[in-house]
């Protein structure tokens, strides 16, 4: 029952009336690494924001690690699901890198010694060990993205949900990211336009378009279906 994501007929409409999710059903088993692809506006980010309770479902249900997402389970859900936003500015809010990466474990009530250890580990994992005292505000987009991942890794989540992690990264940073994601044991859902990364890293692909899932299967199979790709604005 652990490390799973269960989404059942999820529906969601934004306050301005725009229907973003029109009945999404998805099931991810422990340890699976899944790609979420689709054109802009398909609802990928919206779906991801439901996975740690930032958005509340209008209809349908979301369960992570066996926990239905409700007001009283939000704390546990957020400790279990590490969501890395598309825009690092949506993730970083502390004056220094150290404080940002330390926020998660500190909030969870860990002792100082362990927090320091976790921060060091998380920053080392993303290759930003030297940036501990830097002001996160002044870093480049690529650096911020890696720090953003570190802020989530320090919480040791069971599930990682990443929204377009490789967008805006230079080739070296992108290579580092792929290596990092390959080595991490967590269950993973990665939304991306980077099809080459999908082929290299993520054995299962889910295609979304207009608020629904239109395809769900092994990556090689889906990416060889030219009709499917063309119909949903994708290129292999």
């Amino acid at each position, binding site marked *: 029952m652990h490390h799973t994501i269960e989404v059942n007929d999820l529906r969601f409409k934004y*306050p301005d009336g725009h229907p973003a999710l029109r009945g999404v059903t998805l099931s991810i088993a422990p340890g699976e690494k899944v790609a979420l692809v689709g054109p802009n506006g398909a609802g990928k980010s919206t779906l991801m924001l439901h996975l740690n309770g930032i958005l509340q479902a209008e209809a349908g249900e979301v369960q992570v690690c066996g926990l239905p997402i409700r007001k009283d389970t939000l*704390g*546990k859900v957020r400790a279990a699901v590490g969501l890395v936003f598309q825009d690092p500015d*949506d*993730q*970083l809010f502390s004056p220094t890198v150290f*404080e940002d990466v330390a926020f998660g474990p500190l909030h*969870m*009530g860990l002792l100082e010694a362990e927090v320091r250890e976790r921060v060091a580990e998380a920053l080392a994992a993303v290759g930003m060990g030297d940036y501990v005292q830097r002001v996160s505000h002044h870093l480049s987009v690529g650096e911020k993205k890696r720090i953003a991942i570190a802020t*989530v890794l320090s919480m040791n989540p069971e599930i990682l949900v990443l929204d377009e992690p490789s967008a805006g990264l230079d080739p070296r940073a992108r290579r580092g990211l792929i290596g990092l994601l390959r080595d991490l044991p967590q269950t993973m859902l990665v939304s991306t336009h980077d099809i080459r990364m999908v082929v290299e890293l993520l054995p299962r692909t889910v295609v979304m378009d207009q608020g629904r899932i239109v395809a769900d299967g092994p990556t090689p199979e889906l990416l060889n279906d030219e009709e499917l790709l063309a119909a949903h604005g994708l290129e292999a």
Partner: protein
Amino acid sequence: MLHIDLADQYRRGSSLLHRLDPRIKILGALLFILVATLLPPGEWLALALLFVTTLLVALQSSLGVGFALRRSFVALPFALAAITLPFTVPGQPLAHFGSLTLTVEGSVRFLSILIKSWVSVQIAILLTATTAFPDLLWGLRALRIPRPLVSIVSFMYRYMFVLADEALRLLRARAARSGTGEGKSGGSLAWRGRVAGGMVGNLTLRAFERSERIYDAMVARGFQGEIKTLTPPQLTDLDRNVAVGWVTSLALIAFIAFIF
């Protein structure tokens, strides 16, 4: 994508009020507020007539009678600045609270102020709800309000939403990492205070830098200090008729107040 839905005050429509020239509406609202302010305290009939007037205006705006009523309670805290009046104005005592004495005259004044501010806010709400913000700004400029003042209002309004958006993002970022573990979670009050302080600083920085970027974008498109709008319309017969009717009604109410 995920924005604060600070609903724009303006409600699209084609009622009588929507069709009036912004200048007439602004002056009409100001005149109403002036009359309301100048009424002597305790003129209950005149105040009631003013209230009826706001209801009639609300009806004419096709926004419903309750629209302005519901939103007007935001004025209440400001009117409470006059809360000391019942206790400080000398006169016939009404009640005693320890060493404080409530007087009739003071209470009358306080209630008058409360009602005056309440109806004035309703008229202001109806003004902003029936006049699109750019039209409102244009109306102010057309009435010779100084350019710097109007520019400040225009920028403040636009960037309120930008600032609110940034604040929402920061709050969401923190919420997303507020997990609970085995131990006692949430951190100490001091720590939480430090985090909040850091976020406020962050917000200030972001707002400042964002405003610089936006200004650069505007300058890159030729901005030189004033946002130009399309040519203004002429005053119509409707505008003139409504203006005359409005001034007459208010004069009548003022007359009633001063005579009776």
